[in-house]
């Protein structure tokens, strides 16, 4: 779940906008380049956006007795690199802020930073490291999607803790408090998201387990 409308002080909201904006601009440039260089990758690009839309619409119950939703940004981050997801994630967050009163416009910069920037970058790094360590494509994708999901909500917790440090235990106490709400709830959801991302990627590529699976999806392998 995202930070609620009007719940970040104006300076924080502005700061997160300023921090997120360059990533979104870089993402637009990268997106245009991909579409120009490999037009046949358009289908996978749209599918990566669609996957994020589906998963972030599904609010799931968790072991903590509360509900949250996955992010679905890992798929696109693995296939196209993290910067593209800054754009696709922003579109989904805007849709939810405008039509569902979920998240918000003043908190959009902060929510873009957690879901569309930190999550995808963590996913992409995990994907590269796991591949280098010799993990299979399926295991690497699973870890990338699941840990990117958790990283998104750890970021949300830190953002709220910066705005609302605990009167007694300070910033660290607030990180733990908000982390207990957001990040712990997210763990089983992140595992489910990792599994579903592997399924979606296999189905989209039709090349499960083959070395060129991701290359086919990104359009780099014809």
């Amino acid at each position, binding site marked *: 779940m995202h930070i609620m409308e009007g719940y970040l002080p104006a300076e924080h909201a502005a700061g997160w906008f300023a921090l997120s904006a360059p990533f979104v601009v870089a993402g637009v440039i990268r997106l245009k380049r991909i579409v120009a260089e490999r037009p046949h990758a358009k289908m996978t690009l749209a599918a990566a956006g669609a996957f994020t*839309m589906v998963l972030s619409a599904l*609010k799931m119950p968790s072991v903590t*007795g509360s509900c949250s939703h996955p992010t679905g940004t890992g798929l696109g981050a693995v296939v196209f690199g993290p910067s593209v997801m800054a754009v696709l994630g922003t579109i989904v967050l805007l849709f939810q802020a405008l039509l569902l009163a979920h998240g918000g416009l003043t908190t959009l910069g902060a929510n873009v930073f957690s879901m569309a920037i930190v999550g995808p970058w963590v996913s992409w790094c995990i994907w590269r490291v796991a591949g280098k360590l010799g993990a299979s494509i399926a295991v690497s994708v699973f870890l990338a999607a699941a840990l990117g999901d958790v990283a998104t909500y750890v970021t949300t917790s830190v953002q709220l803790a910066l705005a609302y440090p605990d009167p007694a235990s300070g910033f660290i106490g607030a990180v733990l408090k908000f982390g207990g709400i957001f990040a712990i709830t997210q763990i089983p959801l992140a595992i489910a998201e990792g599994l579903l991302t592997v399924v979606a990627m296999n189905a989209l590529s039709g090349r499960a387990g083959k070395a060129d699976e991701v290359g086919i999806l990104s359009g780099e392998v014809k």
Partner: protein
Amino acid sequence: MIAHRSGWLVAAAVAIIAAPLVLPGMGGKFKGTDDQATEAIAESRPGYEPWFQPLWKPPSDEVESLLFALQAALGAGFLGYAIGRRSSTSDRDGADR
């Protein structure tokens, strides 16, 4: 074989999500984490009022669930289309594609 594995992976995901609902001792109100965060903020900062309101709110839970379902349906619809198109081109191009 891959279809087989996908089936198991989806089943595992469903089990993970269903577990908190059916396992004894794992109850709760299953409210959203954003509502819980709002409550936590209200506790540490009594009287805090958000300084900005959503421009538009779904007028009821029904309308809200319509829009969430629409979001999921649009995404899932396109994913199905993309998967179908991919598998039909690989059928046409032969086994090496």
